C-alpha cells in the first residue's frame, strides 16, 4: 500500500504566540517547531499500517526550507521518503491544490492527514483535497483499519462516534486514539539522513483568502477567589454578576 501523510510544521503547543511587523506576521523568534500533533497521529498510524501490510510512506509538507527538519523527523519516525512543495502556504485552498497535484501524479492508495493544523485550525485541507481528487475524505477519524480494499473507520461525531466503511483510495483526517505518537529512535534518526527529501515547485494557484492583520485576545483580569467554606458566594456571583444561573 502506498500511503501519503501530509504534515504541518507548527509551533510547539506550549509556545507563546506573538506577532511582528505591525501584527501582520507570526513572530517565530524563540519558537520551537514540531510536527502538528494530529499529523503525528496520522504518521504513527501510517507506520503501523506499513508494518502490517507492507508498502511505503511518503510524507509531504507545503512550506519553505525551514520545514525540512520537521520532514526529517518524520523520516526518522518511519516514513520512506519526503516531499516538500517549496512555497509559503497562502491558505487552505492553496495548500490543498499543491497536495492534490502531488497525489494526482503518484496515485496513493491512502492519504492520511491530521484532523486540523494547530496554527490555523481550519480542518479544511483534507476535505478540499478530497473534492479536488473526487475521492471520499473522512474526518475526524479515531480508528482506522484496512482490510483488503476496504477502510474501516470510527469517526467522532458530537457526543459519540460512528462506524464508516469506504473503499480505497480515500483521505482520513486523524486524531487520537488512532495510534500512539512515535518517538524516533537512534537508528531511525541515522537512517533519516540518507532517505530522499525531494523539493518540488508549486503549481501556480492563488489563495482564496488572505490574512490582513493578527490580534491577541485581551488579557484576562484577576481571578476572584471565593472561600471554600462559603461556596454560596460563588453561586451568587454566577447569578448576579455573570448572570448565568
Amino acid at each position: 500500500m502506498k500511503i501519503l501523510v501530509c504534515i504541518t510544521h507548527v509551533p510547539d503547543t506550549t509556545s507563546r504566540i506573538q506577532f511582528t511587523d505591525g501584527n501582520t506576521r507570526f513572530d517565530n523568534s524563540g519558537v520551537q517547531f514540531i510536527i502538528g500533533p494530529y499529523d503525528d497521529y496520522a504518521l504513527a498510524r501510517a507506520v503501523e499500517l506499513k508494518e502490517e501490510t507492507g508498502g511505503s510512506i511518503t510524507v509531504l509538507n507545503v512550506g519553505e526550507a525551514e520545514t525540512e527538519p520537521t520532514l526529517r523527523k518524520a523520516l526518522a519516525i518511519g516514513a520512506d521518503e519526503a516531499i516538500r512543495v517549496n512555497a509559503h502556504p497562502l491558505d487552505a485552498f492553496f495548500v490543498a491544490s499543491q497536495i492534490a497535484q502531488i497525489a494526482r501524479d503518484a496515485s496513493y492508495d491512502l492519504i492520511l492527514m491530521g484532523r486540523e493544523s494547530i496554527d490555523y485550525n481550519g480542518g479544511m485541507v483534507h476535505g478540499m483535497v478530497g473534492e479536488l481528487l473526487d475521492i471520499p475524505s473522512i474526518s475526524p477519524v479515531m480508528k482506522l483499519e484496512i482490510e483488503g480494499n476496504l477502510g474501516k473507520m470510527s469517526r467522532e461525531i458530537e457526543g459519540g462516534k460512528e462506524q464508516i466503511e469506504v473503499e480505497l483510495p480515500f483521505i482520513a483526517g486523524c486524531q487520537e486514539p488512532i495510534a500512539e505518537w512515535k518517538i524516533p529512535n537512534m537508528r531511525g534518526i541515522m537512517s533519516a539522513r540518507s532517505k530522499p527529501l525531494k523539493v518540488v515547485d508549486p503549481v501556480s494557484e492563488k489563495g482564496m483568502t488572505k490574512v490582513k492583520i493578527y490580534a491577541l485576545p485581551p488579557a484576562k483580569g484577576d481571578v476572584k477567589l471565593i472561600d471554600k467554606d462559603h461556596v454560596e458566594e460563588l453561586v451568587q456571583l454566577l447569578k448576579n454578576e455573570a448572570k448565568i444561573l
Partner: protein
Amino acid sequence: MSILVYIEQDQGNVKNSSLEAVSYASALSAIMQGEEVIAVGLGNIKENEWKKVGQAGATKLYHVSDARLDAGIIQAHAATLAKVFDKVEANTLILSKSSLGDAVAARLSIKLQAGLVSNVVSLPEVNDGFKVKRSIFTGKAFAETQIETERKILAIKKNTIEIKTDGPEAAVETLTIDIEENNFAAKIKGTEKAEGDVLLPEADIIVSGGRGLKGPENWGMIEDLAQSLHAACGCSKPVSDMGWRPHHEHVGQTGIKVSPTLYIAIGISGAIQHLAGVNSSKYIVVINKDPEAPFFKSADYGIVGDAFEVVPKLTEAIKAIK
C-alpha cells in the same frame, strides 16, 4: 442574491449551533443589502422544529427530506448543498463549525469556488472588501481574514452570536434534489451516542474534571454538579487516556475545543494544552486544592480547596437557588 444557511439536525431536532448560524446570517443580511436568509435542512427534521429556524431569522425554509440524507454522509451533504446553493442563487453560505459542518464546508469551497473561513468569531466588515475575524492558534490569537472570491463560506464558532427568537413565521417548502449515487460511497455502519445527555460541543455550561479527581469512581459528584446546572461533562486528556471517561469528553488542544458561557474546571492543573481548548469560554471557574495551579490565572472565579469537599457543597448551593 441570498444567504444560505446549512441546518444540522440531531435525531430530528435542529441543533442549537445551527440556530446560531441562522441568527448570524440574519445579522449579516442586515449589514449587507438585506439579502434573503434561506435555511436548508437535509434528511430527517421534525416538522415542529422548523419554527425555531424561522424565529432565528430565516425568511425561507427548504427541507430536502431524502431519507438517504438522515445520516451525515459528508459527500452527499456537500453535493446536495451545492445544488441548493445554485438553485436559490446564493452568494454566501453560513454554517456552524461541527464535525460534519467542517467537512462539508471544505468540499463546498472547491465545488463552489468559494473562499472559506472557519472558526469565525464576529460579523464581517464589508465596507472595504469582505473581512472577518477568526480564531487561530487554538484560541490563542485572532486573524482578520479577507475573502477574495465572489462566493463565500463562513463556518461560525459557537457562542459568536446570541440566538434570535423574534423572527417572523416562515413556511417550509420541500425541495427534491437529485443526488448522484457515487456521493454515497462512504457507508455509515453504526452510531454510538450518549443519548439524552447534553452534548459537549453544544453545551452552554460544562463541568470538567481532571486527574485531581483520582479515579473514575469519583465522577458521581461531577455528574451531580453537571446535572444541577443542566451542563455537559468534560475532562482533561490524561483522564480520557486512562479510560476514566470516554474520549469524546476530552477537552483541549488535541481534544474538543469548547466555547461555553461557563466552564467549571475541577482538579485540572491548567496546562497550556488544556487551556487552548477552553480559553474562549465566557466565564471560567476553577476549583483546585493547589493555590499555585496555573489554571487560576485564566479563571474568573476560583475556589482553593479539596474538590471532594467543595463540589458537593456547590451542588447543594446551586440546587438551593433553583
